[in-house]
């Protein structure tokens, strides 16, 4: 086992898959000589050449649309969007097109492609380098949406995503890139898409989260364990779509209380589906209303530090919400 950061795990996953399968290629802005703005493809141009590591023009819709065409015609493209905030121009090619290839041809054509993008805030990114765009993808059947929190999950899930025969949106929380380190096996492994993971076992209440918030929740769980003796179970969604309702419900049936945590603004976010699914699926077991803790309903995260902090969740804010729920 080696200790890796999330960005190293992402890089390793792609490097292994590109070494393993000639049909895997990566395309995006600044990924060749520059090695990607986060260095996810550092050195790839030397290892795989310019035919498989393509610096594209600055044009997101075509990055995805061309990857889609190439996928249908036999390749396994990884399309990198430099920041999730810039994926909006490509939304038509993702949500409108890629999601419907298999369905709309009754299975004759399909699109084995991955669209990777760094998302999320807490990095002084302001309105246009902090966005969570997850629910827009998660809402669209035909897409698979993966949002890992740890190096181990990132690597195993990205390898599965590249091997999947249907489009995967792979969301990498940019604040975890270098912040989060973890053990990654030396030998090859993959992890199944669509399976949530209990990151901390607990008996008093269930906290559901994904991405950076998983780490904040784990911190918060340690705080409340110490200060109040509250034993929180943390479920990491890992995959947002298809949603693993079973694992979530199993946990809530055990603890009888649920808090859903989401960095994104509250209304119509990922947490709404999770909360609604819990409220319906575990109705008889719930000892308290399902709680949601989320970003405020504002257009985006502001830039100046105190403003950003006000918008952004923190372990402290989560700990407070856990205490409230425990006291219900």
């Amino acid at each position, binding site marked *: 086992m080696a200790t890796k950061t999330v960005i190293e795990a992402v890089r390793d996953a792609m490097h292994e898959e590109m070494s393993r399968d000639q049909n895997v290629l990566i395309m995006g802005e600044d990924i060749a000589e520059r090695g990607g703005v986060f260095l996810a493809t550092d050195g790839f141009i030397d290892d795989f050449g310019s*035919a498989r590591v393509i610096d594209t023009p600055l044009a997101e819709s075509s990055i995805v649309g061309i990857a889609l065409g190439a996928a249908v015609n*036999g390749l396994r493209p990884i399309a990198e969007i430099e920041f999730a905030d810039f994926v909006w121009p490509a939304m038509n090619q993702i949500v409108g097109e890629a999601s419907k290839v298999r369905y709309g041809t009754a299975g*004759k054509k399909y699109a084995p492609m991955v669209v990777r993008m760094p998302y999320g805030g807490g990095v002084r990114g302001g309105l246009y380098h902090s966005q969570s765009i997850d629910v827009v993808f998660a809402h669209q059947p035909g897409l698979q949406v993966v949002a890992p929190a740890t190096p181990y999950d990132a690597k195993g899930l990205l390898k599965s995503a590249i091997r999947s025969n249907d489009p995967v949106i792979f969301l990498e929380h940019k604040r975890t890139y270098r912040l989060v380190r973890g053990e990654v096996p030396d030998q090859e492994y993959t992890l199944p898409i669509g399976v949530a993971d209990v990151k901390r076992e607990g008996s008093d209440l269930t906290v559901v989260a994904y991405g950076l918030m998983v780490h904040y929740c784990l911190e918060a769980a340690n705080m409340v364990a110490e200060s109040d003796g509250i034993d929180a179970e943390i479920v990491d969604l890992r995959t947002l779509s298809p949603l693993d309702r079973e694992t979530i419900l199993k946990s809530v049936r055990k603890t009888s209380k649920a808090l859903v945590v989401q960095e994104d603004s509250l209304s119509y976010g990922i947490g709404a589906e999770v909360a609604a699914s819990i409220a319906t699926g575990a109705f008889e077991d719930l000892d308290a209303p399902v709680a949601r803790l989320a970003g405020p309903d504002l257009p985006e995260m502001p830039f100046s530090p105190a403003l950003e902090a006000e918008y952004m969740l923190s372990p402290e804010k989560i700990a407070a919400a856990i205490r409230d729920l425990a006291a219900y």
Partner: protein
Amino acid sequence: MSIEETISRRTGSGKNDLSVPPLTEDDLLEMYRTMVLSRTLDERVWLLNRQGKAAIVASAQGHEGAQVGAVKASDPSRDHYLIYYRELCTMMALGVTPTEMLLGFLAKEGEPMSSARQFPLHGSMDRVDIVSFSNVVATQLPHAVGFALADQMRGIDAVTIAYFGDGAASMGDTHESMNFAGIHKLPVVFFCENNRYAISVPLSKQMAIDSVADRAEGYGMPGVTVDGMDPVAVYEAMYLAIANARNGGGPTLVEARVERFYPHTSDDDHTRYRSADDIETMTQRDPIEIMEQLLVSRDLLGEARKEQIWDSATRIVNEATQAAEDAPLPQPTGDNDIYKHLYADSNGN
């Protein structure tokens, strides 16, 4: 400048590298038969629409010459056809049968492209690589470029033809696709069927220039305009473009000037926005008549043969209509279960 010159100047290949094999008598007759069959089927679909049986039809009438000429210049055994909804005659030329087409218009069981999940002409074919994933205008252009990229990367000798209209030329996707294809010299031909209208919006409100082909220079590729009512002229232009792409010369933008004889679709009424004059004059040239004149001038077509060809088309379309009308509507069970083909099964299919 001739088309040869335009293409060779841009790509640096010698003009003499490019030559167009003349069409044989059989070729010409086959093209004519296809156009007649397409026209006959097209008329039938309008009838079925008026009878409430076909939900929607976008007619290819007026585009047949361009479509049959373009297919003739290509190689259906290996090329890719990223069509849009107005390609009825393209489909015929590629060997899709009238029955198959009518199963699409009537949304019947056995429809080959999408199992009747989609509008007619949407989905994909198995025998020939005809693909049209969506109704969203111009989205097929990046797909086509991706097809060509995949072929180029693996050294596969195939050319991709991306079909689109004058309206589609305005979409951002069109710009982004042509730009990428130009940079990477991909084996793709952008085939614009310019019928001067996007539904009701005339060319003058679609662009400040007269010819879509004028944009090609900005992408470092040759752009040529051709009389789309003349099947042979389209064949020649497309042959050069396709041959050039096959030889590694990169993309070409070929614009065929055509007319849309019917309203945009069966939901439209073009008298709301086209002047009587415009409607009157647009049909004065008909690609089928132009083909007939050519055949007559070459002594390949007399009245008897002509009648026989039209009669045969009617018979084929009658039989196809019967077959399609007899076919059941798909029920959402078994093979037509609407939950099928959402994701790959556990075997990856």
